[in-house]
């Protein structure tokens, strides 16, 4: 955190996270900040009026998406770049999320973080979108899209089931960013009618119960009321 002097007082400049407390990508970063014990200010972005698609927000993230992190004069976007930055910068405090001290461990974190990005995320996010977002726009979920992606998700989680039979968490016997990145979408998925896809896989279910019981996650989950009043 940068320090600046104002009227003789030394103030710590707090990280600013632009986003919303129910947004999956924002909460991905918030869970990480809580795991590392890093103070931050959540600056709400009004998606309904399109604040994210205009300047000045577009100057912070030209792709017009939340979240954005401001750390002094550094502005970064893409939730998984933000979590990586926080995990490295604050590596000496809170939970060790990337294990820089061990080549094998930090490499496994990279592998299973890529798995979340490229195998898990593309199949779970359409399901979450159909179930939670379409109704907000007055539409019914497209069951064909849901079914197609549930089938793919089952295949992905079969691989996780086998993996979690060998290691306690995805990258190894330690909780890491690789597990953390899954949490927002998994939390919402467990509120859909298709949560049995997780419950039917004993190791995946146990893993989810373990990681969702972490204090950092519970703090963030309080604000994750998507589609609930």
């Amino acid at each position, binding site marked *: 955190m940068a320090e600046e002097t104002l009227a003789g007082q030394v103030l710590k400049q707090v990280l600013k996270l632009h986003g919303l407390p129910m947004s999956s990508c924002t909460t991905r970063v918030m869970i990480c900040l809580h795991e590392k014990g890093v103070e931050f200010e959540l600056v709400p972005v009004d998606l309904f009026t399109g604040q994210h698609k205009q300047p000045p927000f577009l100057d912070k993230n030209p792709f017009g998406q939340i979240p954005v992190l401001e750390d002094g004069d550094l502005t970064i976007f893409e939730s998984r770049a933000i979590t990586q930055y926080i995990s490295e910068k604050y590596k000496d405090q809170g939970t060790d999320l990337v294990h820089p001290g061990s080549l094998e461990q930090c*490499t496994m974190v990279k592998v299973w973080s890529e798995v979340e*990005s490229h195998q898990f995320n593309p199949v779970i996010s359409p399901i979450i979108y159909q179930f939670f977002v379409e109704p907000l726009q007055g539409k019914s979920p497209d069951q064909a899209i849901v079914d197609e992606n549930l089938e793919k998700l089952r295949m992905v989680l079969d691989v996780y089931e086998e993996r979690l039979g060998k290691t306690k968490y995805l990258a190894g016997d330690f909780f890491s960013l690789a597990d953390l990145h899954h949490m927002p979408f998994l939390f919402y998925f467990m509120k859909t009618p298709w949560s049995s896809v997780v419950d039917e896989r004993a190791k995946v279910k146990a893993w989810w119960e373990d990681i969702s019981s972490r204090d950092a996650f519970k703090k963030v989950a309080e604000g994750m009321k998507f589609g609930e009043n």
Partner: protein
Amino acid sequence: MAVIKVHGIPLSTAAARVIACLNEKGLEFDLIPVDMGSGEHKKEPFLSLSPFGQVPAFEDGDLKLFESRAITKYIAQEYGDKGTPLLASGKEMAIVSVWMEVEAHQYDPVAMKLAWELALKPHFGMQVDDAVVAENEEKLGKVLDIYEARLSVSKYLGGDVFTLADLHHLPTLSYLMNTQAKKLFEPRPKVSAWVADIFSRPAWRKFLELREQK
């Protein structure tokens, strides 16, 4: 036999990503072909190396990895003092990270759909889906507008020097520039210049020679 092994084929964009990275580092490796036509990648023993059944799989001594962008990050870190530095440090690394995620989440899903339709399907004698092409050409155009603005203030995507953030784009770009999708690049001069620059790198040219042979 070399210590480093890449299981895959040069046609695969993900395998190409890894080979380009190894070339940038000047590292020797064995390319072990995988017979994808007969589904070798969906069976053992390949699945033990890459459990989602995708190429490439990668070995460096006892270390066995999969997911091309984890492999390139591993290579760039482990062999940091060899060949081209492909990462950065401190705040500069944060920016490189951002643009690596942009490639993975904003660019690649769209570029891969287009490369599949326009370059790979014809190669396999499959029917091109014009609706998918039109939809993804429009999406790619919007992404490239953002790249044009970025490359107007930065020589490369991650900053002043070539990094993994640029390298990860090479395989799909190489397919797209040989199809009708190249029309999306022509009206964007900064993007076009960046593409020409990264295509001219010896490490990439060495990969293209390999792809020609195989």
